[in-house]
Each structure stands twice: as C-alpha cells, then as structure tokens.
C-alpha cells in the first residue's frame, strides 16, 4: 500500500501557481476597471443616492433641501400629472416616428447600398452629431419660423401657414435629432443578418413581403428595440426641443425638472419626479428586452 507522493505534491504546487496567477489576473482586471468605476460612482451612483435621499425630504423654507423622511413628495406627483402625461405621449410617439423613418434608411444602408458607398453613407448619418443639438434645433426654429418655409409658401400663394410652436414641429425636431441613434443599432442588426436566410426563405416559397415580415424584421428586432428604448429614454428627459420648437407652451417632465430645481428651488419634489422618471425608464428597458428576446430568440440587445 504505497502511496505515490509525486501526484499530490505537484498538484499542490500547481495550485499555488494558479492562485498567484489568479491574483495577478484579478488585480489587472481591477486596475483596468478602476477609472470607469470611480467615474460612475462619483458622477452617477452618489448623485443618484443624493436624489433618492432628497426625494423623501422636505423643501427648506428658503428653498433647497431639508432633512426629513416623508413620502409627501411622491403623494404630490399628481400636481405634475399634465407634464407626465405629455411626456408619456411624446416619448413613445416620437420614438415610433423616429423608427418609421429610420428603418427604411437602415435597411437600405445594410442590404441595398453598394458596398463601396456604404461607409460614406453611414458617415453622413453620423456627421450631424458633430454640431450641437442646440445649434441644429435653432436652425429649425428659423426654417419653420415666419421667415422660413411659411414665407416660401406665402410666395406661391399659400398664406398663413403656422409651423413653429406646433406639436408637429416638436415631432419633426425629435425625428431629426434622434434619427442617427435609431438608425445605427438597426443597421448593425440588419448588417449582421445572414443573407442566405433570405434566400432560404425565398427558396421555401416565401414572397419578398413575407420574407421581410417573417425573417428580416424578426431578426432585426433586437436592433429595433435597442434604438427604440434608447430614443424613448432620452425623450423622457427631453427639454430642449419642446422648448425651442414647441414654444414651451406644452409642459414636459424635463421642463418641470428645470423649473423645480432652478426656479422654485423645490429640490425634494424635483427629486421625486426624477426618481419616478428613472423607474419608468427601467420599466421601458426591461419591456423592450423582453419583447426582442421573445420574438427573435436572442437575449442580446447591443448598444451599438
């Protein structure tokens, strides 16, 4: 009954080396993640905690925050019901309008555009991002304003057309501003689509329309849901476009937040609204993920 000693010994030695390796590996991982983590903690997690704490506090008499524990701010949410309602309408409608414009563009870029033009056309989609949204929205103010398109229409005899400060102008601004964010994820998922699947579908007797509905659309759904949730979440906090192109007449949550934090200095109430907005965003994200998982069978929703 002799036991070999070599085996366990060398295994033990190996484990020591392994542990050393793993330690070094973990250290390296930590080092690489540290800057991003620090950034997120300082500028996202801590402010979020602060907002969460504020939201259960009270407004100090001179404005700002006063420590307390009350749900009064949340109970007071219906006071801004109109802003919530307007936002909840604007965000999905805006995202949907964006989607309807973006999908054909992405489809053309990914499947129809000649290979050598593709990169240039894609760059053209992104280039507007180089100018700030504020500048571009100002440009639309001028285009839609009295001396823009209405003046041109008046010139050919169509008088008294009002474009600026209408819901239509806001929708136009939204589609214009967020189009690239919708095009890119859809483009990526369409570009990755295996063309032979389309041939297989045609081979099995599917007309181009049913191939599109049964294969192309379903397999690009992760991109669609990514773009949709991306645009919708940004629209939930949108402030600029409704203010400039809608004339600030329709009140959105973004406007409410600016008002509460900067003008009336009711930080706790503003915080409660902000927290509610975050909760809504999370619900939107989860729902979008669920839908694309169920239909296209992939769990991945790539953020570009």
């Amino acid at each position: 009954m002799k036991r070999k000693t070599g085996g366990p010994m060398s295994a033990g030695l190996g484990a020591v080396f392994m542990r050393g390796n793993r330690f070094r590996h973990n250290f390296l991982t930590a080092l690489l993640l540290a800057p991003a983590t620090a950034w997120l903690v300082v500028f996202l997690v801590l402010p979020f905690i602060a907002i969460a704490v504020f939201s259960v506090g009270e407004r100090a008499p001179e404005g700002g925050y006063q420590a307390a524990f009350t749900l009064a701010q949340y109970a007071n949410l219906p006071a801004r019901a109109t802003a919530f309602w307007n936002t909840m309408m604007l965000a999905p409608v805006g995202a949907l309008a964006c989607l309807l414009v973006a999908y054909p563009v992405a489809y053309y870029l990914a499947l129809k555009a000649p290979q050598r033009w593709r990169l240039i056309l894609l760059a053209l989609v992104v280039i507007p991002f180089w100018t700030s949204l504020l500048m571009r929205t100002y440009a639309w103010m001028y285009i839609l304003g009295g001396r823009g398109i209405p003046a041109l229409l008046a010139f050919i005899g169509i008088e008294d057309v009002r474009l600026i400060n209408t819901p239509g102008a806001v929708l136009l601004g939204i589609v214009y501003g967020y189009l690239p964010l919708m095009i890119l994820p859809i483009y990526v998922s369409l570009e990755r689509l295996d063309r032979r699947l389309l041939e297989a579908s045609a081979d099995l007797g599917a007309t181009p329309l049913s191939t599109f509905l049964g294969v192309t659309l379903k397999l690009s759904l992760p991109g669609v849901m990514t773009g949709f949730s991306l645009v919708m979440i940004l629209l939930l906090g949108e402030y600029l476009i409704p203010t400039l192109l809608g004339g600030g007449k329709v009140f959105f949550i973004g406007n409410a937040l600016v008002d509460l934090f900067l003008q009336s200095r009711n930080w706790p109430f503003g915080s409660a609204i902000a927290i509610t907005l975050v909760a809504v965003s999370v619900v939107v994200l989860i729902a979008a993920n669920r839908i694309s998982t169920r239909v296209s069978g992939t769990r991945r929703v790539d953020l570009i």
Partner: protein
Amino acid sequence: MTAVPDIEFRGVTKRYGAVTAVTGIDLAVPPSAFVALLGPSGCGKTTCLRMIGGFEQPSEGQVLIRGRDMAGTPPYRRPVNMVFQQYALFPHLDVEANVSYGLRQARPRLSSQEIGRRAGEAVEMVRLAGYGGRKIHELSGGQQQRVALARALVNKPAVLLLDEPLAALDKKLRTDMQIELQNLQREIGITFVLVTHDQEEALSMSDFVCVMNGGRIVQLGQPSEIYDEPADLFVADFVGKTNLLSGKVAGHTGDLVNVALADGTVIAARKRTALQKGESVSVSLRPESLSLGATEGSPFKGIVRNRIFLGSTAEYAIEVQGIGTLLAKADHVIGHSNLFKPGEPVAIGFASGTPLAFPEIKNNGTNQRVAKNVEIIS
C-alpha cells in the same frame, strides 16, 4: 420515347461583369436521378445550382425545370428546394417551425392540422422525432443537417438541390449521411442535384457525375466511367488518386500508343485523342493498377520510401530512378504479412487495365477542351 428531363440547361452562360462563371452549359438530368456537379472551387458548379434555384439568372441560354423555361421565375415560384451550405436554418425558429416554414407559405393556405401532419412526417423521415421544440443552436451539426433536409423536402419539390451538404460534418458522420442521402433519394424518388468539390462524395453517392472545370462541363458519366475512363488529364488527376508520368509519343501499335518515359522506359497506353509522334503526353497510372513484386514484365524497379497502412489496403510511395515517386496500392490479406518495408527494393508491374495517355496541358491553365452536347441517356 424519352422522358422530359427534370432539369435542362440549354447553352447556358453566366457572366458577372467581365468575369464569365460558366460557359455554354448543355445538360439534361433525367427524372429520379442523383446527379453530382463535381469540380474545384470556382469551376461554376455552385453558379449552376443557383441558376436552378433562381438566385441567379443566366446571361445566355435557358434553364428548364420539367420542360418549363424558368426565365423570370423567382425562387419562390420554382418547384425546387435547396439544402444550403451551412444549412441557413432560421435561428429564431425552433425545429418544428423551421420545417413547417415552407408549408406556411403555401397559397391557398393549408390548415394547421395539415401543416402539423406534414411537418411531423418530414421530421420523422429524417429521424428527428421528438426534437420539434428544440432551438437550432441546441442541435449538433448532424442534426442541423437533418433539419435542413426536412425543411427542403417538406414542400415535395420536383428536384432537391444540395450545396456542399456534408462539408461541415466530420468524417464518420459524413459517411453515414452519404448512405442516408442515397436511401432518401431512392425512397422519395425525386431528382437530387448535389454540388461538391469532394470527388469521393460525388463518386460514392450519385448515379451520374458531371465534372466541371473552368466554367465548362468536362465529362459526364456514371461514377465508374469517370474513374476508369477519364475524358482528359484534368479529370484523371482530379478524380481519385493517380500517378501522372510525362513522356513523349514514340510510336503506335494498333489502337495503343507507345510512350517513352523520362528514363527511357517505353510503355503502351490507350489514348482519347489522336496523338502525334514526338508529342509530349502525360500517362495516368492508377495506384491500384500497379502490382508490386512482379518479376516478369516489370517495367519499373524502385525502392519503397513510405508505407501508408490503411487496414484493408496499403499504399506505398516508391522511388523509381529517373521517373520520380510512384504511388502504388496493394490489397492486404488478414494474416498474410505481404507488406513491403521502407527501404526495400521492389519491382513494379501492371496488375490491371492499360494506362491512359493524354496530351500535356499547356500553360498550366484551365482545360479549354469543350465537351459538346453532353446528355445523360438513361
């Protein structure tokens, strides 16, 4: 009375811009045949298959399916189905939905019971019963192959097209699938058109092999014909293993041509085309046509360099002075150690068949010889 061919190519040429993929293809595939399009990559075999499927349109000529000209008919209106390379199964659908995809496209619509019944039959035919609810990525390569087959057969096509169907499988599975495909074809009795670059696959499965090179059909025939009587040097070299010895025509004896090899040995060979005296030729000697250890009438003597023992046979690389290395194949009889050892001197004779002499291919390019009006008569 000849039956209407299932597939017919009439003078088909396909060009992509300045590149000509196939040139002047004439081919008629009789009903219920298993035909293989065999050739190296870029020979135009896949282009031909895609023209049958409707994914490419011929630049010239006609493609007919069961006597009907298919010009302008899109893939979804053709009575053929394809098993794609790497299968192209729908990743978002399960096995059942993949198989029934074609049935759900039928207009007028089929009842859901009908769809379920026929999809079930197809799944059973490829022995995948019980896998209906599986996702595609949960299946092995062999199982995916079966799903692709069931999906293509569920619409009861007139012709099944197979684009390198076994390329993605490992060797053992490939052999099994070869037998299974052959059985399947006999069972359902429709025409199978197989595209492959694997000569073994083409020879083992099909009733007819159509060898292609440089966008043309080089030879059409039964597998044994292709192997035994290659039409030219390309086919002799591409199909099966062979020894190609260069030499010059020294004279003629009856139908045979006498070829003087590099070392001065003169051997008698059959020929396909008229050969002039002094013309450079290549003589094809199949490894199994050589016999080892023969004493009388052995044209070559050499030294065994390598022995590749394969069980039922053994292959030898034998160095022959002035000629080069010859590959010879000898049957192995269990219990009889008739194997030669590396380093052993050995005499080489002809066991069977007469060698074939072909004109040397010039400039090493594609073979320009055109086989005209090739047709299978069954």
